[in-house]
């Protein structure tokens, strides 16, 4: 399409009709200041060309002059391959559409109202929205060939269906085949209903539904087949168990028979063994009976003999008893006689003893008196000597307790004092004071407290000090005497210490001085000697006594004993008259006679004891004889009773009983032997064998029961599973599975076919598009080189005819997005030019540039004018600009009329 003229009324600022045109076939420049209405005029023309005349959308209302309700009128004269036309449209209040065609030199109406709109749509290959005003994408080729002011400097997308695709097809010299487009769309719809973009079954689609059905059916079928496999396994187990049961039943029968036989054998053996035990038990009593009878017979015989012996012993005992009684009577008589003589004999001895004791007592009294007299004499001598001794001892005690050693010590100390005093006197101060009258002096010496000394008148008092003397003389004053000698001072100190030691030793010895000591020691030694002599004289008198007092006490004691003895004896006068010798002779005679008398008496006593013993022995023999007699009688009675008891046990007699017992024992022995012979060999193992057989039978029975149970269980399961009709179920599922598989295959094939057909068509269309990419790129590259003056760069397009980039190679090209705004708008201008030139090969085309080169420098501007000028040979180009200076001298300048 190319434009010839545009007329407006009641549009925007154009309240009165205005006409723009005629447009030249080549380059047209509409130059006017901003806000003059250039763009409004062209937009209104687009509304007239592409919108329904009945549209009341905001875009249409925006055409009305501000603040009015005037009905916008638009008329556009244009030309396509089909001819030259004029469309007149009035919008809003009085909508009207009238299409006219230039025929025969005049405009001829060809359609009006909706028909006009539709015909116009066909002529311009434009589209319509569902409702409302059109948008540039509905404007057909003009939508792409109209570079609108202020819109993004980007090439519109061509990847979509519709016009973009149409342009691509035209550019690629591919015939725009609506049938193929619809074919492809329908194929896409079919494929999309079944397939996802990734080639998977689409949820809800027939393929996915069939797949889901298949999966469910295969699950069910797998379950059936698992059950079938279970059935086969159970069947195998059943057959195995059934075979086992058969085998076990046979073995069970064999074991049963064997167990029965073993049981019977064991029972028979047990019976025999029991009989044997019975017979053996019977043999014992028979043997015992025989033994008892035999023993009883032997006992009876023994007791008979014993009875005879007992009776003979009894008779002897009776004789012995009588003899013993007689002997006892004789002994008793002798004893009684002796006992009667005994008191006389004892009296004789007692008299002799009394006489002897009297002689002894008298003799002792006499000896005690003599001893008391002797002691009295010793007491008198000892008492005198003791008094002397005591006196000497008292004297000795009154003397100082000095010993020669102590005296030597005193003498040594006195010598030391003398020596030190001489040294002191030779070294220290010596002051001699001799007052005329009695005075007192305070003596201070060596820092010690002053001492006061009385000085008798005219008496010289020598004062010595090793170093200094401080004297206060009453009534006179203070005299201080000092010496500078240190040795005198030391000697004075030593002297003081020696004097002190001497004084202490004298005090201890209780003597005033050493001379007194020597005297005291001599007196002491003399007294000690005397005392020792007296004590030696006293000692023989004291004897065993410690002192005189002890001796006196002993003498007093002896006197008392003598008196007591005399009192006790109470000697008669006659006796007192006798002398000690007589008394001693009488005592000796009594003493000599007494042992013989006592011995004779003792002998008599022994004889008496012997008689008594003989009497007792005779009595004991009598008792023993009587006891033996009683025992013999008891033995006879016992034996008689025992013999009677034995005889009573065997009424038929012992011999008969013994014979019967012997016969019974022989019979019992015979039964044991016979039963033993009847027992089978190894009969003792039969019970164990029987137990084994029973256990084996039980085991096989248990196994059989278990296997029968397994078989029956398997049988039950088989019957249950067999009745489920698994094959029929599988058949039904297989039928459904086949049906689902057919559906799946059909849907999948349909999906694949639709997708493949669509993609094959698409691929062919893209291949055709791609075939023209190179010439288009070359055309663009040439235009860019002409604009920029650079020949080293090439423009690259992608398969959607979008500018991929600019550069020496495709790989190193700068992306379109990264180019400057000026470069972008110039490239897009070139692309539009190229596209328009391609499209113009089939039909005249108009390229509208509405102030699009706002970022282009003057140098490029000139080059663009060159390019546009060249392109204007084949294209109608309409430039809207507010910079008329840039296009001055270029093309046809249009003014509003």
């Amino acid at each position, binding site marked *: 399409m190319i434009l010839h003229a545009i007329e407006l009324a009641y549009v925007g600022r154009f309240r009165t009709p205005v006409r723009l045109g005629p447009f030249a076939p080549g380059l047209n420049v509409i130059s006017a200041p901003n806000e003059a209405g250039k763009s409004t005029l062209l937009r209104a023309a687009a509304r007239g060309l592409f919108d329904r005349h009945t549209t009341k959308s905001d875009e249409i209302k925006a055409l009305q002059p501000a603040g009015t309700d005037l009905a916008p009128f638009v008329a556009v004269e244009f030309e396509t391959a089909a001819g030259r036309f004029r469309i007149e449209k009035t919008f809003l209040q009085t909508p009207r559409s009238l299409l006219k065609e230039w025929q025969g030199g005049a405009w001829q109406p060809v359609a009006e109202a909706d028909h006009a709109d539709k015909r116009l749509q066909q002529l311009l290959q434009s589209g319509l929205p569902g409702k409302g005003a059109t948008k540039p994408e509905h404007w057909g080729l003009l939508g792409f060939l109209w570079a609108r002011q202020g819109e993004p400097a980007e090439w519109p997308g061509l990847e979509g269906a519709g016009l973009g695709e149409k342009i691509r097809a035209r550019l690629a010299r*591919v*015939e725009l*085949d609506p*049938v*193929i487009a*619809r*074919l492809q*769309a*329908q*194929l896409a719809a*079919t494929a999309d209903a079944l*397939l996802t*973009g*990734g*080639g*998977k079954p689409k949820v809800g689609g027939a393929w996915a539904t069939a797949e889901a059905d298949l999966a469910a059916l295969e699950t069910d079928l797998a379950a059936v087949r698992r059950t*079938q496999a279970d*059935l086969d396994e*159970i*069947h195998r187990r*059943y*057959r195995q168990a*059934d075979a086992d049961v058969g085998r076990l039943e046979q073995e069970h029968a064999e074991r049963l028979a064997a167990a029965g036989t073993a049981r019977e054998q064991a029972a028979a053996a047990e019976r025999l063994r029991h009989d044997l035990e019975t017979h053996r038990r019977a043999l014992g009593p028979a043997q015992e009976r025989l033994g008892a009878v035999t023993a009883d017979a032997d006992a009876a015989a023994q007791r008979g003999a014993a009875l005879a012996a007992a009776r003979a012993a009894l008779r002897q005992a009776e004789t012995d008893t009588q003899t013993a009684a007689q002997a006892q009577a004789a002994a008793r008589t002798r004893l009684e006689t002796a006992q009667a003589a005994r008191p006389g004999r004892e009296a004789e001895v007692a008299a002799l003893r009394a006489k002897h004791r009297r002689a002894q007592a008298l003799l002792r009294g006499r000896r005690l008196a003599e001893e008391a007299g002797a002691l009295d004499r010793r007491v008198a001598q000892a008492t005198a000597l003791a008094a002397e001794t005591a006196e000497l001892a008292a004297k000795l005690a009154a003397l100082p307790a000095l010993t020669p050693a102590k005296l030597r010590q005193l003498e040594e100390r006195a010598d030391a004092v003398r020596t030190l005093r001489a040294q002191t006197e030779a070294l220290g101060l010596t002051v001699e004071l001799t007052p005329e009258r009695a005075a007192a002096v305070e003596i201070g010496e060596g820092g010690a407290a002053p001492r006061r000394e009385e000085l008798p008148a005219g008496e010289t008092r020598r004062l010595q000090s090793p170093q200094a003397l401080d004297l206060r003389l009453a009534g006179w004053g203070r005299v201080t005497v000092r010496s500078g000698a240190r040795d005198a001072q030391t000697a004075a100190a030593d002297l003081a210490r020696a004097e002190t030691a001497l004084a202490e030793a004298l005090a201890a010895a209780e003597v005033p001085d050493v001379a007194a000591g020597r005297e005291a020691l001599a007196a002491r030694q003399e007294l000690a000697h005397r005392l020792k002599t007296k004590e030696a004289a006293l000692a023989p008198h004291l004897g065993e006594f410690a002192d005189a007092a002890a001796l006196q006490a002993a003498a007093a004691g002896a006197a008392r004993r003598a008196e007591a003895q005399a009192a006790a004896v109470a000697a008669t006068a006659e006796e007192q008259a006798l002398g000690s010798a007589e008394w001693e002779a009488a005592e000796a005679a009594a003493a000599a006679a007494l042992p013989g008398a006592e011995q004779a008496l003792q002998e008599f006593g022994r004889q008496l004891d012997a008689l008594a013993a003989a009497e007792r022995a005779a009595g004991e023999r009598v008792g023993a004889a009587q006891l033996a007699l009683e025992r013999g009688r008891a033995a006879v009675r016992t034996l008689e009773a025992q013999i009677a008891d034995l005889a009573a046990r065997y009424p038929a007699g012992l011999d008969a009983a013994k014979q019967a017992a012997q016969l019974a024992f022989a019979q019992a022995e015979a039964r044991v032997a016979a039963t033993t012979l009847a027992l089978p060999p190894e009969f003792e193992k039969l019970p164990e064998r029987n137990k084994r057989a029973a256990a084996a039978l039980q085991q096989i029975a248990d196994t059989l029961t278990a296997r029968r149970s397994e078989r029956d269980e*398997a*049988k*039950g399961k*088989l*019957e249950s*599973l*067999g*009745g*489920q*009709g*698994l*094959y*029929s*179920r*599988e*058949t039904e599922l*297989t*039928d459904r599975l*086949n*049906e689902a598989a*057919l559906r799946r295959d059909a849907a999948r*094939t*349909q999906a*694949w*076919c*639709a*997708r*493949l*057909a669509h*993609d*094959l*068509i698409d*691929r*062919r*269309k893209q*291949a*055709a598009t791609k075939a023209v990419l190179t010439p288009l790129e070359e055309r663009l590259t040439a235009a860019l080189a002409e604009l920029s003056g650079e020949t080293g760069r090439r423009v690259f397009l992608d398969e959607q005819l979008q500018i991929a980039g600019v550069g020496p190679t495709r790989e190193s090209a700068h992306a379109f997005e990264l180019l400057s705004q000026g470069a972008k708008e110039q490239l897009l201008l070139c692309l539009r030019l190229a596209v328009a030139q391609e499209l113009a090969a089939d039909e005249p085309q108009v390229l509208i540039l509405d102030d699009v080169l706002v970022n282009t420098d003057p140098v490029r501007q000139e080059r663009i004018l060159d390019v546009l000028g060249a392109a204007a040979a084949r294209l109608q180009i309409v430039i809207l600009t507010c910079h008329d200076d840039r296009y001055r001298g270029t093309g046809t300048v249009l003014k509003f009329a």
Partner: protein
Amino acid sequence: MFRLIHSADWQLGARFAQFGAAAPRLRAVRLETLRRTVELARTREADALLIAGDLFEDNQVDDALVAATVAVLAAEPAVRVYVLPGNHDPFTGPDCVWQRAAWLKAPPHVHVFRAAGTVELAPGVHLLASPLHQKQSTTDPSLKLAELAAALPAGTIRIGMTHGSPAIEARHKPDDFPIALHAATRAGLDYLALGHWHNWLADTDGGKMVMPGTPEPDNFGNDASGRVALVEFDGPGRPARVQPLPVATLAWRSFDFDFLAADAARATLGAALAELAPAAARTVVRVTLAGTASPAAAAEVRAWLEAKLADFAVHQLRDETRVALSAVELADLQARHPILAQVLADVDRLEAFANGTVAGAAEPGAGAAPLTLAEAQALLAPAKVELAALTPPVLAQLRRTLFRTLQEVAK
């Protein structure tokens, strides 16, 4: 005279997987045929109806079918029925079909041989049966019959019954119960009723061994099926008279339609279908379309056939044609829709890639580059279609899709 009807291989409950939704109908028909055969036994005054194995397709058929079958067999008390387990329904124990309640409660005149044994059908007439207990075996099941026959008195009619393959060289498998070709003579039988193969076979062992085939055909090509044998015995040692009796409910017919001679094929097939039309409700038909046809021609023939086959009990239309344009059609297509012509050439290339016959594949023409293998793979990858999946039917469908859709959008 003693008369019996010998049948076998009823295969009740068979799948017919290739028939899809029509399979239940084909299954149901077999029970109907059994019912009619029992009636036939009654009307023919047969003393016994023998079923020599494979009454059922499988031991695990459902109870409903078992009950229905027993009911059919028990329906005529006058007809004694003797059923032998075959290799499809062997007597295997508690899970086999013969232990179902329906069989266990079956009336006395319906007898199942769960073990080899002899039944006296009538005075002087003995039936010796050797049932199968497994699905496969290399043992000749007729050997049992010889053992059984040895226990029978002389001078009686001996009828054997078992299931297996006559040991005809190259026609049987060693583990498919091979039966010696002189099995009847070997066992001293007057007649050996066999089952296993689905076509009539009655000339073995001097005609004493008879395989009646399945009474109801179950596949195209089983032309000697659909029968039972009516067998009459005049006395021991005298040959039995064997007569095939057709009992099939459905006839199975298969036809081809070759586009190479489309007109002649149309005429022939039309006549054949017209001839079958009266019995259409009892006929299973399969028509195979073959040859190369344009989309329009193929569609037209399919439509014609769909109409013709609609009345048949079961019909299959197998389309094995290759869609191809005539030169005129191709030129027209290239003129009107050059892209579509190129796409068709691409489809040819895809087929060539799939078949490995790239050489000689059609060129897209008009200077367009032919589709390369890499391009083909790049094209198929997003749709997740393997090249191997592009089988001739798929590619035929692709072409049909193109043409059919083209027709739809061009309207």
